[in-house]
């Protein structure tokens, strides 16, 4: 067989390759590989050698040949042979137990398979269980069949493609329907009709997958906005002051997570995967504490002067940013995901939801539930709502408003810290982290109105999803501009936001 490969004409060689592939001998791969690389030589008219670095090995026996025979001839491999060899190697590798090897082989086949490889691919398909490899192979199988001269094979391939749901299938089918010089590439009408039908089926499924993916990434963005804006809605609703340092409180929470991560890495490497469970309360406490200090030292003295509060908190945010730069450096720091947050679930082909995002959505839901419970089911929550609605009346009824202010501000800041902890898992942590979220979270508060959590939730999710869909349509920057313009127009109509507390006020 080896001799057929080396001495025969191209027909004989083809057959030899086919036979070798079925033999399942690992040495075959190295022989075929050597042929592609031009390392196979013949000596006399019987001996086949693999010559590498002036050392020769007999291809049939695997024995080293020493010394090298004087007269050797290269085995010439033409392009057709080369392709056949590559296909053969790939289909041989397809039966490897190693997933990575199989995947590489499937990719290789996708680029240069021809009809000879069909039986091998079909055989591999029957055995394969990995979805990615299987998808690749199915596609290759169909595309080879599409190139077939047999009409029935082509028709079957077009029909089979209707079951697939990858973008590559769409390209394949579009190829079938393509025109060249005014004439269809595919001359058979029936095949074209079938291809149209398959194409619309595939496109329908692709669109569904696309929409599902966008809705999810919209929800994911929305929950991040929600986390960022929730604390702001509380402090703004309660005190009517805009806390420009809110973004920096998010940043402080993210850095708290970073510090906890480093402490775990140093002192408890065994429990490293669970550092987040400790980082969450730490982020809440640190940001909350910073918030309380800010409230007591600065914001308290500016009540009733909302514009000045805005400026003073902006000053605070500058100081916090520079402080983080001084302590941790101006570069972004690395926060690692725990193992259980990496990877994702595939709900459809091409639609993979990363675990980190899913967990953050759930986390935001949990935080929302807690805040809702705190505001509606506890005495503190009752007081907070009372002060939000009517400060004077609440004060007259014996609510200690300064204390409520402090606690509520601490709560809002703590939630910002939680947002920072969540953000550290999906984005960069750097001193400028807060700046990129501040405008967005204000927009959520402005859109949602204050005093009711529902407004914040709807506004955050709505903005998130709208942003992602517009992004697909017009690109990220224009999407963002469109959303901002929409909000500016929106508050012309409803200056109090979506959900406003009704009350008798001349000015709010």
């Amino acid at each position, binding site marked *: 067989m080896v001799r057929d490969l080396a001495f025969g004409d191209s027909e004989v060689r083809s057959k030899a390759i086919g036979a070798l592939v079925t033999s399942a001998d690992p040495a075959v791969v190295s022989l075929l590989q050597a042929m592609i690389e031009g390392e196979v030589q013949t000596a006399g008219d019987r001996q086949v050698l693999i010559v590498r670095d002036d050392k020769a090995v007999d291809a049939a026996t695997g024995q080293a040949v020493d010394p090298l025979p004087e007269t050797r001839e290269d085995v010439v491999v033409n392009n057709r042979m080369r392709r056949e060899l590559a296909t053969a190697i790939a289909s041989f590798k397809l039966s490897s137990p190693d997933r990575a090897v199989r995947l590489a082989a499937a990719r290789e086949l996708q680029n240069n398979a021809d009809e000879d490889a069909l039986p091998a691919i079909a055989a591999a398909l029957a055995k394969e269980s990995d979805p990615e490899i299987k998808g690749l192979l199915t596609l290759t199988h169909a595309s080879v069949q599409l190139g077939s001269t047999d009409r029935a094979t082509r028709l079957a391939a077009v029909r089979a493609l209707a079951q697939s749901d990858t973008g590559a299938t769409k390209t394949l089918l579009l190829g079938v329907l393509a025109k060249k010089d005014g004439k269809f590439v595919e001359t058979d009408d029936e095949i074209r009709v079938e291809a149209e039908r398959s194409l619309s089926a595939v496109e329908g499924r692709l669109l569904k997958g696309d929409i599902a993916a966008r809705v999810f990434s919209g929800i994911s963005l929305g929950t991040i906005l929600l986390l960022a804006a929730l604390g702001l809605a509380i402090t703004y609703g309660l005190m*009517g*002051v*805009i806390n*420009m340092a809110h973004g920096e409180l998010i940043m402080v929470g993210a850095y708290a997570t970073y510090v906890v991560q480093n402490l775990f890495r140093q002192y408890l490497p065994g429990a490293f995967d669970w550092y987040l469970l400790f980082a969450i309360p730490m982020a809440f406490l640190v940001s909350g504490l910073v918030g309380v200090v800010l409230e007591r030292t*600065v914001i308290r*003295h*500016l*009540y*009733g*002067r*909302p*514009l*000045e*509060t*805005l*400026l*003073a908190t*902006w*000053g*605070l*945010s*500058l*100081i916090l*940013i*520079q*402080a983080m*730069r*001084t302590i941790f450096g101006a570069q972004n720091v690395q926060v690692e995901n725990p193992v259980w947050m990496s990877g994702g679930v595939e709900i459809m082909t091409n639609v993979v939801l990363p675990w980190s995002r899913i967990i953050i959505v759930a986390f935001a839901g949990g935080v929302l539930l807690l805040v809702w419970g705190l505001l509606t089911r506890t005495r503190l929550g009752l007081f907070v709502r009372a002060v939000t609605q009517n*400060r*004077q009346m609440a004060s007259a009824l014996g609510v200690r408003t300064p204390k409520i202010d402090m606690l509520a501000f601490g709560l809002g800041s703590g939630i910002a810290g939680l947002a920072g902890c969540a953000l550290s898992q999906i984005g960069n942590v750097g001193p400028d982290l807060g*700046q990129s979220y501040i*405008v967005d979270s*204000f*927009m959520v508060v*402005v859109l949602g109105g204050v005093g009711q959590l529902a407004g914040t939730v709807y506004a955050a999710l709505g903005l998130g999803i709208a942003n992602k869909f517009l992004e697909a349509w017009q690109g990220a*920057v*224009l999407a*963002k*501009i469109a959303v*901002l*313009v929409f*909000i*500016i*127009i929106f*508050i*012309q*109509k409803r*200056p109090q936001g979506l959900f406003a507390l009704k009350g008798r*006020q*001349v*000015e*709010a």
Partner: protein
Amino acid sequence: MSVQKSLTPTFVPGALPHGTGALPRLWSGKAWAFLGAAALVLLVVVPVCNLLVPKDSVFHVSDYTVTLIGKIMCYAIVALAMDLIWGYTGILSLGHGLFFALGGYAMGMYLMRSIGRDGVYKSDLPDFMVFLDWKTYPWYWSFTDNFWYCALLVVLVPGVLAFVFGFFAFRSRIKGVYFSIITQALTYAFMLLFFRNDTGFGGNNGFTDFKRILGFPIAAPETRVAMFMVTGAALLGFLCLGRAIVQSKLGRVLTAIRDAETRVMFSGYNPVYFKLFIWTLSAVICGVAGALYVPQVGIINPSEMSPANSIEIAIWTAVGGRGTLIGPVIGAAAVNLGKSWFTQALPEYWLFALGLLFILVTLYLPRGIAGLWIKKRS
């Protein structure tokens, strides 16, 4: 919140004499003398000391100083505009950097056109357009090779934008922090827009590498000094204009809107048009300042529109003293000189200093530097 507001001690800077029907004079005699001295320094002393006094003399004013003062005067004009809208009318805009930048871009378009074929690619189009493989100017670049058309744009673009935005915002009675936040969103949106290469304003890099203005080489000392003098004259002119407005009946209504808008409404005035007038005027003044700024500094890019820049304008005004006109001019100068010094000597600490300035001024110095001086006099 409404009740809280009335509890706030309201201060009345630049309070006018009551009871007299006649409006007071534009400036007092002393103030006229001061203005005259300032004009003399800006229009005669500095140019002479820069151009005619030899370099090794102690009286020589370096080119660096001329540019720095020129730049600061542009900022002072912006602070002045901010004072009209914030100090006198009580509307805090966090988007004034946008109007400044738009004025700058309008002037920048003319300066880009007058580079001609001297760019890197030797093309009729600016380099960034060549880079994008554009063949012709987009429509909004039409006529921008004409200086006077661009000068018109400097006034019109910020003015029309402010008018339209203000009309809708004031009509829906958006005020207080809400107004501040949406002006911030506005400048943020524009910044994102101008950062795009496809918008046609040079993307990230904006406009730079100007060669000449009105045919004069832009880097020549004489041209620089001329631009410096124009800026100085503009600053003094706007100072007088601002004073004329706040001394007029219109100015009194504006101050009344600041202190008790509801009462102004109940007295039969419609605050919308008063606010709209001063808001648009303020934006136009900012645009002019931007147009003066760009040829002197030699660059304009979208970072001028960042929300942080606009907030800094507010702090210049606050440091100097709101509602005093001259205060914001002093404030802009003080803060920017401080910035120049810090960024050279202690770059690490500039943000600390600026942040502290924001906090301390709002907490302990609500009337700014001018307030200190007024207090000392009374």
